């Protein structure tokens, strides 16, 4: 194992621990942009600590599915974090580095949470789960298409190869990757549950999407689920930074610039949340359909380019 691989592995493990910082940063900057003082970026860690000390709850009539679901959700999120290479080099943790396998891991988490909602039979959980699964139909297609854009440019679906194949500052000088980047940006918004697709600050159950299925949990179960939501930020933002943002070819430089790129993307999310309101849920498919068409255009430009 080279030093670069070891360093990238350390960054992945760091990502498991640092993921909650990303939503913390977004919330912090969003508050600043809106003229509030807001919580510190470390607020998610405080919430995790508080939840870790509390006891879980048992719902009458719930089966083992309800009990195991948070662990499965967190485990598949962790496996996805280990699957995403933070640079052109990354150790194989046993899950490989395939772009299309990522979709399977995200689907497993959604399945577990949806099944748990049915298990407790809570109407608000089920509203959230049904919306989440419905939107995921369009999100998954867009995710696969935007990753396919990058995979076609790089000539492989190995994410390490994709990071290497899209490297250079000229990422946006070809229409192919620029169109792919636009499509992926909408995937980032949908997958992290942020405006205009979902509102992470809502406390009204009837408007919840991603938060809904979390309602019946408490204590450490809830901590797992909140960590998994933060890990989803890490997964899509690292992919965005190392594929669709300009990045250098050298693995050391990639790792060194990553914090700055992630901060920039968090800031971009904060700006978007400040200026864009949540849209009607029935309109979300149109937004993602636009993203799909843009990604298809990106593939088209790649196919006709000499």
């Amino acid at each position: 194992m080279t030093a670069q691989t070891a360093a990238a592995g350390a960054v992945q493990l760091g990502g498991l621990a640092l993921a909650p910082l990303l939503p913390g940063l977004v919330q912090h900057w969003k508050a600043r942009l809106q003229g509030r003082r807001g919580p510190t970026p470390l607020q998610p860690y405080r919430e995790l600590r508080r939840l870790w000390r509390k006891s879980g709850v048992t719902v009458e009539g719930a089966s083992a599915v309800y009990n195991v679901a948070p662990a499965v959700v967190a485990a598949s999120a962790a496996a996805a974090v280990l699957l995403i290479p933070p640079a052109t080099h990354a150790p194989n943790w046993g899950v490989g580095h395939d772009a299309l396998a990522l979709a399977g891991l995200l689907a497993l988490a959604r399945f577990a949470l949806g099944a748990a909602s049915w298990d407790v039979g809570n109407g608000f959980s089920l509203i959230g789960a049904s919306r989440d699964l419905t939107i995921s139909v369009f999100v998954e297609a867009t995710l696969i298409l935007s990753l396919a854009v990058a995979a076609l440019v790089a000539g492989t679906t190995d994410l390490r190869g994709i990071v290497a194949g899209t490297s250079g500052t000229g990422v946006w000088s070809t229409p192919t990757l620029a169109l792919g980047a636009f499509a992926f940006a909408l995937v980032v918004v949908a997958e992290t549950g942020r405006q205009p697709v979902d509102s992470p600050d809502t406390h009204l159950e009837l408007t919840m999407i991603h938060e809904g299925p979390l309602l019946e949990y408490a204590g450490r179960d809830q901590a797992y689920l909140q960590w998994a939501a933060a890990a989803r930020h890490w997964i899509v933002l690292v992919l965005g930074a190392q594929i669709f943002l300009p990045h250098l070819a050298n693995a050391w430089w990639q790792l060194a610039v990553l914090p700055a790129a992630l901060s920039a993307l968090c800031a971009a999310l904060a700006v978007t949340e400040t200026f864009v309101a949540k849209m009607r849920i029935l309109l979300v498919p149109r937004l993602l359909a636009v993203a799909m068409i843009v990604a298809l255009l990106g593939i088209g430009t790649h196919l006709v380019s000499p």
Partner: protein
Amino acid sequence: MLVAGLTVIAVGGVLTAVLRTFLTGIALQATGVGITGIAGFWALGAGTATGDGFTNAFELHFGVDGLSGLFLGTLGLIGVPALVFSSRYLQPTVRGRAVGALIAPFMLALALVVCARDPLSFLFGWELMTLLPAAVIIIARADERRARRSVFTYLAVTHLGGAGTWISVLLLAKAGAIGNPAAIGSGSGLQAAIAVTALVGMGTKAGVMPLHVWLPRAHPIAPAPVSALMSGVMIKVALYALIRVLVDWSGPLPLWLGVLVLAIGALSALGGVVYAVFQHDLKRLLALHSIENVGIIVLGIGACLILREHGADTWAAFALAAALLHTVNHAVFKALLFLGAGAFERAVGSLELDRLGGMLRRMPWTGAAFLVGAMAIAGLPPLNGFASEWLTLQALLHVSAYGGSAAGLAGAIALAALAATAALAVLCFVKVVGLVLLGPPRREVAVEDAPVPMRGAVVFLALVCIVLGLAPGLLFGVLVGLAPWSTAAPTHVGLHLSGTGSLPTAGIAAVLVALSAALVLLRGNRRAAPAPTWACGQMIVPALRWTSAGFTKPLRLMLETVLRPQREISIRAQDGVVQEVSYSGHVPHLIDDRVYRPIARLALLGAAHARRLQSGSVGMYLAYLIGLVIILLAAARIGMIG
């Protein structure tokens, strides 16, 4: 060995018909089909052809090669659990014995189609394969008018479409192209005609859209083990024939045919799963999922055709192997789900989704196996459905990479369609798992787990799902070798292919299981006392529980412009007080309503007019005959015929 297996099935079938030897007969059938399956897998592993080779002559010839072996093996893999299941599922009444006895010729017909080496026995087996399930359904549901209607639709559609099979096989035999692809020039009109007729004929039998109308009618009304064999094996045998014609017996096909196959596959996959989501009957839902999975397999075949046309032989073989792997995988989990549904129906007396519930706790073995099957069909790691869907996605991506601009874009659209299909399948099976397995029982009847043979059958199939999910590479490597052009086969337990990030299936399973277990242990078990679920202080009464229609409402609203769902709400009020609110809503099947109903109406109208010709008077018929002779003579005279 194969002959011995088939003989044992036949003897078993005869014994099943007799009351005293009913169980012995079923056991013999299971042994026979087991031996057949082992012989099939052995032929697949050996990879050499035994018995006769393919011939274009109309004489009886039988033989086995790798591809036939794979389908015989699948027949064994599904047949044994289905028969073990039926040993308790079927009652030894006259009707039950007849159904049990008919399973034997049904399996023999399936074996006949894959072992046939000449057009005559192939077409004979093909017709038997269509007629026998119809007989089973008629016998099992003799007293239901609707069932008889469904069987009529099944026979009508499969025979009209089946004409395509006859035409393509006879054209092949005439050109001498059975087993000899060099006999027909690549890109010739004859080749295209054979491919298109095969696509219509065998596609109808496989249930691809828009030729699928019979499938969601016929599969749900068959007895569970027969449904399992129909969905698991019969429609796969149709795909076997399609692969023979399109891949084995043709040179590279023109590009437009590959794109056509891809389009049909994408339509079946998306259409099948979209209509499945809105079903409220478990078996009908499963039948529509068969259309979806056939679509996924056809996508793999389409990718293979396009890649082959472009000379990307390695990935063409991978695409074919992806389709074949999904064929086996779908056979296993669909049989599991149909048998599980049969067990639930026996226990609760209904298959309406909104009337089941809590089966995981009430029938722990069957329920757990059903959960595994649901996760496998939803394409979730680390089960078998995920491995073959991943392979198909990769094949489509490589169509974009190697297929040139037009086919490349088609590949990308198919890729998006398959991704959306996978997500829709997750949505659908979250609903199924939630309504059937989880939550409180929606109908209070005393239920106990299925008897041991029925339980054992579904648990066995669940284990096969897990094993194929952990080590798909072992089977995949063999399947790559089935392509008629030679390709270096990868030999890994997982799926390590060049140009991909590789899918170490066992590694993913290990990481997921280890992390989940560690997190459960880390959480400990400190919990507050049980409390009811929180509903803003409202009491949760059964009438307020979520239903199948409620869970799929967001999707129904989003797809409203396409699906045109119908809903009706009527409120009866008296003196300003609401007495009764009734709601009904359903998603009509557009292809049925817009395509088949007008055709059926026109056909009936035409028949009504044609009936006038049948006056019944002998003189009139003689006049017809004389007229025909005159026309024929005139045609011969001017040189049109003869």
